[in-house]
Structures are given as structure tokens and as C-alpha cells.
């Protein structure tokens, strides 16, 4: 009876032991905050065309523009302050990553648990559909869907969800299949409790650890997938540049020595994705009983 701490507190105590993961978590939270308060911390609103001057375009880092402030990371071809554009781009990237991640988490988990619990034809139908989809590269699927639906945030999120829900369905299915055979589920069925109650109150909470891990990885994937689509010109409209589009914007100038337009948004993207992945890895290790000390 000694163990009085909550599971969450124990989880944090273990998480704290990995210093790299803690740093990654701090970076992740910091970038989240920068994105959230982009309008406060940015020297310029890059979406407001009235603020932009073509005289300031493609200026190197440290240039003092017509606005009277220093462009720490330089400016892009439209004369946007790159630092501000990165903050705003970060906001869009994280927004889309989170939205796509959570929608595909919900849909995929629902399908996976349903398949595992009900079995039979429904299981075969859902899981073969998932298998079929996993055999396509996610980027290809997203490209096709965006090309069909057109540009815009909702369409982009839809494409990312369609490309990624299968991973969640797979994970939820595996976890639920393992939990399904355990006595506590049988005990709940034997009470008897309704199928809905057994799935929501018993099966779902016991399937969450692997889903959290997949969710962190998939949010990072959503962000990089979105950046890829934007880089290819299939993402968001030019007026609301995400990180991918900023990279794309600067690409033609790379060879003429104006590296900063592409490189700095790229660095921001890499830092974000690496931070999320390190945190995700640590969470996965902590949920893996075989690595438990």
C-alpha cells in the first residue's frame, strides 16, 4: 500500500530523468508558446499587406528596414520580416498538425477499437481497408486528396487525416485486441454492461498509452507532411504562409546567396519536429514495459 502517488506524478518523475527529453519538452513548449503569441512577439504582422514594402524584400539578416526595426533573420521576397513570418508560420503548422492529429486520433481509435471488439466481418472490413491504405505512401495519398479538394486549411486537414487515421486504427486495434481477451473485460461483459460502456469505460482507457505515443509521432508527421505539401505548392494560399511555403519561397534564391529565406524556416521546422520526436520517443520508452527498470 506504499505507492500513494498518482500515475501522472510517477510518469513525470521518470520523464525528468532523461535530460535530453526535458530539453526537448521545453523547446516544444517554447515553440508552442511562440506560435500561440505570434501576434505579440512578432515585430511585424506578415499577413497585413499594408505593413509590407517591396523595398525591404530579400534583405539579409540584421538589415534595418523601412519600418525602423532590425530584421534579425532578414526578409523574404515579399518584404516580410522572416522572424515574424516564422512565428506565424509556426502557428499555422502547429495548428494544422494538432488538428489533423486529433481528428485522425479520434477516427482511427474509434475504428480500431470497434474492429477489435466486435470482430467478425466488421473487423475484416475495417482492418483490410486500413491495410490497403497503409500500402500507399501517406504523401501520395495526401497529394491526391489535396489535388482533388483544392487548397485551404480544412481541405489540408482533411487530406492529412485521410492519410494518417490508418496508423491510429492499426495501433488502437492491436492494443484493443490484446486487452479484449483479458478477464476484466469479461467481468464487465458478465455484469452485464452494454457494449458501449465496455468499449468506452474499460477498453478505451486501457488502450491509451500506445495511442499517446503514436499521436506525438503523427503530429510531428502531420507538420512535416503539411510542409511538404506547401513546399510543392499544394498547401495553403500564398497569403498565409506556413513554414513549408516559406522554404519554398526562398528556394529560387538559394543559389544567389540569399540562403536565409529558405534556411531559417527550415531550421525552425527541424527543431520543432526533432523536439516532438524526442519527447515522443521518451514517452514510448516509458510505456514499454520491457525497458522498465
Amino acid at each position, binding site marked *: *500500500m506504499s*505507492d*500513494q502517488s498518482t*500515475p501522472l506524478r510517477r510518469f513525470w518523475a521518470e520523464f525528468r530523468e532523461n535530460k535530453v527529453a526535458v530539453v526537448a519538452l521545453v523547446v516544444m513548449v517554447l515553440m508552442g508558446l511562440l506560435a500561440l503569441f505570434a501576434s505579440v512577439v512578432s515585430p511585424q504582422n506578415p499577413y497585413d499587406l499594408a505593413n509590407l514594402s517591396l523595398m525591404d524584400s530579400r534583405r539579409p539578416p540584421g538589415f534595418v528596414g523601412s519600418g525602423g526595426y532590425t530584421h534579425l533573420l532578414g526578409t523574404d521576397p515579399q518584404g516580410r520580416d522572416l522572424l515574424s513570418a516564422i512565428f506565424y508560420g509556426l502557428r499555422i503548422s502547429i495548428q494544422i498538425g494538432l488538428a489533423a492529429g486529433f481528428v485522425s486520433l479520434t477516427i482511427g481509435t474509434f475504428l480500431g477499437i470497434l474492429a477489435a471488439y466486435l470482430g467478425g466481418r466488421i473487423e*475484416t472490413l475495417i482492418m483490410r481497408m486500413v491495410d490497403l491504405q497503409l500500402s500507399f505512401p501517406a504523401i501520395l495519398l495526401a497529394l491526391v486528396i489535396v489535388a482533388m479538394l483544392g487548397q485551404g486549411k480544412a481541405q489540408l486537414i482533411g487530406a492529412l487525416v485521410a492519410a494518417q487515421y490508418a496508423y491510429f486504427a492499426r495501433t488502437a486495434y492491436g492494443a484493443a485486441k490484446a486487452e479484449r481477451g*483479458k*478477464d*476484466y473485460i*469479461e*467481468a*464487465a*461483459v*458478465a*455484469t*452485464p*454492461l*452494454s457494449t458501449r*460502456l465496455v468499449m468506452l*469505460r*474499460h477498453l478505451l*482507457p*486501457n488502450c491509451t498509452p500506445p495511442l499517446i505515443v503514436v499521436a506525438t509521432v503523427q503530429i510531428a508527421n502531420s507538420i512535416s507532411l503539411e510542409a511538404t505539401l506547401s513546399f510543392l505548392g499544394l498547401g495553403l494560399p500564398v497569403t498565409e504562409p506556413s513554414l513549408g511555403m516559406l522554404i519554398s519561397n526562398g528556394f529560387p534564391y538559394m543559389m544567389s546567396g540569399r540562403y536565409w529565406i529558405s534556411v531559417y524556416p527550415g531550421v525552425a521546422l527541424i527543431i520543432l519536429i526533432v523536439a516532438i520526436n524526442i519527447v515522443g520517443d521518451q514517452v514510448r520508452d516509458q510505456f514499454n514495459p520491457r525497458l522498465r527498470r
Partner: protein
Amino acid sequence: MTAFVKIDGVSRVFGPNLTTGEKIAAKLGARVETRSVHAVSDVSLEVRKGETLGLVGESGCGKSTLGRLIAGILPPSSGRVTIDGVPVMTHGVKATTRVQTVFQDPFASLDPRMKVGDTVAEGPITHGLTTRADAASYVAEWFRKVGLDPVWADRYPHQFSGGQRQRIAIARALAMKPDVLICDEPVASLDVSIQAQIINLFLELTRDLNLTTVFISHDLSVVRHVSDRVAVMYLGRIVELGPVAEVFGTPAHPYTDALIGSVPKLVLDGDELVRFETIKGEVPSPLSPPAGCFFHPRCALATPECSRDMPLMRPVAGRAEADTRAVACHHSEQLVPG
């Protein structure tokens, strides 16, 4: 005394559960196992109100499956189970709360992510035995009855020992106010020192609540201690049935006799430890049980008749037809002469 729980010609067959791919492979002539296991074959039993029926047999003899059929966890392939005339299952779904189960492993039978108080309260709230507002006091009452401190209701299963967990599982079953309790090896996974406590708790509660109990165990001494009557199972069939003292005292089936003989005892004969007899041979595969009496390949009394005809349950020699003592053996007279 009439039958309260009536098990009427119940069978349960487990198919090989083939996937679509395996079915196609089997059709094309691949070597896929397509035989079925008859876990329980044509079992008829009656349990009287307030009685404790012991169900014994080796592992894999179908006693747990029979328990699940009575508890309404598994639908029978044929036959049916009724409690007080009401079927336990309708259309493959459990239709009653009058029968509850205590499972073997208390480490697996409690939801690890649910507070134990919520686990106990969940069923009664769902079935209107208590309200969400009164649940805490309802749970506290049952915690006290099974010897647990009610303040522990807010803890999670991992914070309890095996014996305490089994008490929680018992509270969960009894909080549903059942008439019938199925105990599926409830002490098998506990320490010997804890077993006695839990068994005494069972005896106390079944008496106080006038419960009708089916007590499944492979431990003959436990069954002897708690049961009024006992049913012996072998490969999915009941081979002997009768009052505990009589079945264990003068077994009428060679399998029962061998089972009792195989129990290790701490009896010394002089300085020598008494050797106990193991039953020779292996339990045949339930995928392909032998013809005739399922026990004949291992039986000392077997005759050609035994490998030909399946013996049916009949009254033990010298007993009236209506008596509850019955045996499925061609040669029971050699063990219990009339």
C-alpha cells in the same frame, strides 16, 4: 427441494476460428486445422436453491467453460441454462443480473485504470441497484462485508495484494445482489495462507446471503470443504455426480477414484512418505476424443465394451432412480457394489 439452476443438455463447441484467408487456404487443400473442440458436451445438471455445487476435473476438462455457460458469459452451442425458470441468455446476450462471477485471477479481473470503488459501483449503478449519489455508501457497505476498509475505494488495483483484490472482486459480484454465484477457481492464484481466509469469507457470505453457488476448482480438498454436492468432469462431460462425502468417500467412477488417489497428502507411513498414484497416460486431445468412454484408454477397469459404447449417466448401484447420485461408467459396480 427443486432445481433452482437448471442446466439442460448444454454443449459448447469452439470452432477453429479461421480467418477468411485460412478458409480459402483450407478449400484449396492446405493443411489448416478445421476440427472443432467440444469443450462441454451435453451436460445436464440441477443446482438447488442455497446449495453449493463443486465442479472438479483436470485442466482442460471444460469446467471453466461450463462455469462461463452458466454465468451467461458464453452462449451455449446447444441446450440452455435457466435460473428459477428464466433463461440466463437470450439471443446470445446475457439477460439477467441474477448470476455473477468471481474470476480466477484477481490481477487480471479488475480494470487497472479504474478506482476499485468505481469498479464495484459500476454494475449496481447501471442496473439501478443504487444511484450515483448513493454509490459511495453502497460501495462502503459491501467493502465492509468482504472485510475491506471503505476508505480504500479511491485506490487503484495495483495498490492491493492478491487476497485484497479477490475480496474486491467478490464485492463486485455480490454488490449486484445475485441469487447465483459462479466461482471460477477463486483461490487458485492466491497464496495458501490467503486461500483459507477467502474460502471462509465465501462460506460466511453464501450462508448469510443464502446464495446458490457453483464452485469450480481443481483442488479437491477445497471443493470438499465448501461443497454440498460435487460434479466430476472429464473431457467436457460429467462423469460422476453426488453428495461430496459420498463421492469422495466411495467414488463410483474409476476417474474420480484415480483423481482422489492422485492428490498429494502429507501422511507418513512409518518413516516412509506415502507415494501417491498418478493417473497413467495423458488426457486425450479434445480435438479427437477416443471412441466409447472417453476415459477408457487410461482406465484400469476398461473392457472392449468401454471402447465401443459411450456410458450414460445412471444411478449408482443400489440407489433409487430419483436419487442425486449418478455415474457414467459401465463398471461402477466394481467400485461401489450394490
